[in-house]
C-alpha cells in the first residue's frame, strides 16, 4: 500500500506541471469563449447553460478528459533513449503495482479535472451572467427574470451526467472513469507503436464511453428501457469495453516483456 502511494505520488510529481497547464488552458479557453459569446447580441436569451453548450464545451470537456488520460500516462514517457520500464528495474516493486498506480493516478486526475470544471462553471457564472445581462438591458425593454446558479447547474447536460442526483447513477460515472483509467494505465505500460495503438484505442473508449453515458441518461430520463434500446446501449458499452480489454492484453504483454529484459 505504501509502495503504491509512493509510486502514485512520484508519477504525480512527474505529470503535475503538464496537468496544471492543461487545466489552465482549458479554463482560459472556456472563460474566453463564454465571455465572447455572452457579449454578442445574437446570443440574447441564452443563459449560462445555453452559452456553455453553444460554445461546444460539452464535447470539449470529453476531449480534454482524454488529454488528461494522456497526461497521466506521460509519467512513463522516456523520450525513447532509456528503457520505458525504468521503475521495474530500479525499484523493488511487483510489476502489477505499476499499472495499479497508473490507474489510481489517472482516476484522481479525472476527479480533479471534473471538480475543476464545476469550479470554473460556478466562478464564470457571475461575470458571464452580468455581461449577458448588460447586453440584454440594451436590447430588451421590460423586466427579465433573474436566473440563478442553481437553475444553470441543473439545466446543464454535462452536470446532469457527471453529478447524478440518483444514487444508482453514480455507478455509471465511476465505471466510466475507471474504464478510462484502465486505458490510461495501458498507454503508460506500452511504448513505441504499441503506445500509439493504445492511445487510439483509449480514444475510442473515451468517445464511445461518453456516448454511452449520454445514452444511458437519456434512457433513464425517458423511461425508455426497451429491448431495442437496451441492445443499443449494450453494443455501445461493448464498443467501449472491448478496446480496454485489447489494451489490457497488450499492456500485460509489455509488462511481461519488460521484466524479461
Amino acid at each position, binding site marked *: 500500500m505504501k509502495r503504491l*502511494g*509512493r509510486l*502514485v*505520488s*512520484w508519477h*504525480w*510529481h512527474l505529470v*503535475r506541471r503538464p496537468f496544471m497547464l492543461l487545466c489552465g488552458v482549458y479554463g482560459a479557453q472556456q472563460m474566453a469563449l463564454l465571455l465572447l459569446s455572452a457579449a454578442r*447580441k*445574437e*446570443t*440574447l*436569451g*441564452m*443563459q449560462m*447553460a*445555453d452559452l456553455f*453548450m*453553444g460554445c*461546444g464545451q*460539452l*464535447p470539449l470537456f470529453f476531449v480534454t478528459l482524454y488529454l488528461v488520460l494522456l497526461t497521466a500516462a506521460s509519467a512513463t514517457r522516456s523520450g525513447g533513449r532509456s528503457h520505458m520500464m525504468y521503475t521495474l528495474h530500479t525499484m523493488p516493486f511487483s510489476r502489477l503495482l505499476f499499472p495499479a498506480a497508473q490507474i489510481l493516478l489517472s482516476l*484522481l486526475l479525472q*476527479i*480533479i479535472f*471534473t*471538480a*475543476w470544471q*464545476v*469550479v470554473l462553471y460556478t466562478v464564470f457564472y457571475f461575470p458571464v451572467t452580468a455581461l449577458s445581462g448588460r447586453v440584454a438591458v440594451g*436590447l*430588451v*425593454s*421590460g*423586466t*427579465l*427574470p433573474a*436566473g*440563478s*446558479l*442553481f*437553475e444553470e*447547474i*441543473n*439545466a*446543464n*447536460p454535462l*452536470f*446532469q451526467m*457527471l*453529478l*447524478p*442526483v*440518483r444514487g444508482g*447513477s453514480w455507478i455509471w460515472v465511476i465505471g466510466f472513469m475507471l474504464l478510462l483509467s484502465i486505458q490510461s494505465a495501458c498507454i503508460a505500460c506500452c511504448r513505441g507503436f504499441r503506445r500509439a495503438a493504445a492511445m487510439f484505442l483509449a480514444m475510442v473508449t473515451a468517445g464511445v464511453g461518453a456516448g454511452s453515458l449520454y445514452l444511458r*441518461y437519456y434512457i*433513464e*430520463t*425517458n*423511461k425508455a428501457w426497451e429491448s431495442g434500446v437496451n441492445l443499443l446501449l449494450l453494443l455501445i458499452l461493448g464498443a467501449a469495453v472491448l478496446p480496454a480489454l485489447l489494451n489490457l492484453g497488450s499492456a500485460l504483454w509489455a509488462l511481461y516483456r519488460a521484466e524479461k529484459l
Partner: protein
Amino acid sequence: MHTKKQSPARGLAVLAIVSVLVLGMGTAVRMVGLQKMQTRLIDEYGDHQALQPFQLSAYSRFQAENAITFVALENGQLSGQVFPEQVRLPENASLPDDFDDLNIITIAPEERDAVNQKASYSGNTATSSAQSLWVMRLITLPDNTSLRLHIADYQADEPVEVMSYPAAWSGMDWDVFGDYGRQAYPQWTSNLYVRWGDSWMIGLNKDSILYQPGIWRVTESLSEEEVQTLPTDGKVQYGDISVDVLNKSTEYGSVELFYVPQNLEEILKCVTLDQYLGVLYQDTDGNIRFDLVDENASCLQQELIFQDVGTEYSCTQVNTQQADQSCFVLGLHQGTDYRIVSLQIDQSGKLEWIDLPGNLLNDGSLLPGTTVIQRSDDGRYLLFVGREENQIQVDRAFQQVDSLSYPIGYRLNVYDLNEKDVVYSGLLDTGAAKVWGSYVKNPSFMFYGLAGELLSLNRDYYTVFPQEAQGGTTND
C-alpha cells in the same frame, strides 16, 4: 536550518479530497436546485381562504432540467413534488390529444377494375381516374386502436384523378389526391369523442350519410397489428405489376348507435358528467341545447342553453378538473360576445348550470387564456385559471422592435357569484419564467442532428392541467 520539503503525495491527496468535496457540493446544489423548482403560490389580492372549496392539480415538464414538478391545491393548501431525471408525464395526466379523425376519399369497389385498367405508372406513383367515390372515415382512438367507416358515397360530375403509392403515409390504395371533395369532407374533422366508462363514444354529424348523425358507441376497434393481418380484397395496378391490397373502401371495426338528440342539427361536444353522458348540440331551430343521458340512452334532462344563435358561432370546451362539472365557452355573434357555460351535477343528482358573460373580470383579458374553470360544490364561487405572461420589447439590430412575451405561471382568480366580484387573486408560479430565453432567442441560431444534441440546449417547458384532478403519483 531545517528546510521544509513537502511531499508531492500530500498535494495530490489534498487536491483529490477537495475535488471529491466539490463534486459532492455540486450534487447538493443540484438537489437543492431541483427542490427550488417546486411550484409556489403568490397571494396578491384577497383572502387565501377563498381557495378552500377548489381542487386543482398540474404537472410541469422542464426539458432542459429533465424534471417534472407536480402541484396540487386541496383545502386551500398547496403541496408539491419534484420528479428529477424524468421527462414523461403519468399516462392519466397527459391529455388524450391523440384522437384522430380523418376523411379518406377513395374509389367505389365496383369501379376498381375500370380504375386499374386506366392506370398509368411513373416514378413511384400510379395515377388513374374515377367518378364514383366513397368517403371513408378513419378514426384512431387515443388507445391506438382504429376503425374505418363508410360514411358516404360521392358521385363526381366528371372523372377525378386518383393516385396510389407503393409506400406512403396513406397506405397503398387509390385515393383522391388534392382538393376534390374536400369542401364537403375536409381531411380533418371535428374531434367528437369521449371515453365513457369502458367504451369510447364518438359523435357523427350530418356529413355522414350512411350512418345516422348522433352519438355512437365503438363496439370494436382494431390495433395496428390486427389491421395488418386483415385479408386483402382488392388489387392496384402498378405498371405491369398487380398488387394485392386491403381496399380503402373496406370497413373495419364497428359502432352501434347509442343516442340521437331530438331535432339534431349539429353535435358540438360530447362530455362525461359523473356517470352520465352529456351532449352539447344545436337543434334545427338554431338553439344550443345540452342533453344529459344515462346508460340506457334515455335523456334525463334537457337544457336550453341559448336560443337561436344562427350559424356564426364557436364552441370551446374548458377543462374543469372535476368529474361532475363541464364547462364551455361559446363565441356568439361571430366571436364578439363570449359566454361561459358551467354545468354541474348537484348533490341531488340534478344538472344545473349557469351562463356568464366572458368579460366577467372587466379587463376582458381573462377569457382567451382560460385553462381551467371550476365551480365550488355550493355553486357560489368560480375559480378561473389562466396563463400569465410578461410582455417585453426586443430591439434586434437591423430589425424592427419585436413585441414578445414569456410565461410566468398561471393566474388564479376566485369569483363570487353573489357579490359579483373577484374575492381572491394569486399567481401560481410554476417556474415557467426560467424558460424566458427560448421565447426571445434568435431563431436562426440553431443546430440540428448530433450537432444540435452537443451544441444546443432545449429549454422547452409546458404545464398540463389533467382533466381529472391527480393524486401526485408518477409511473416512476
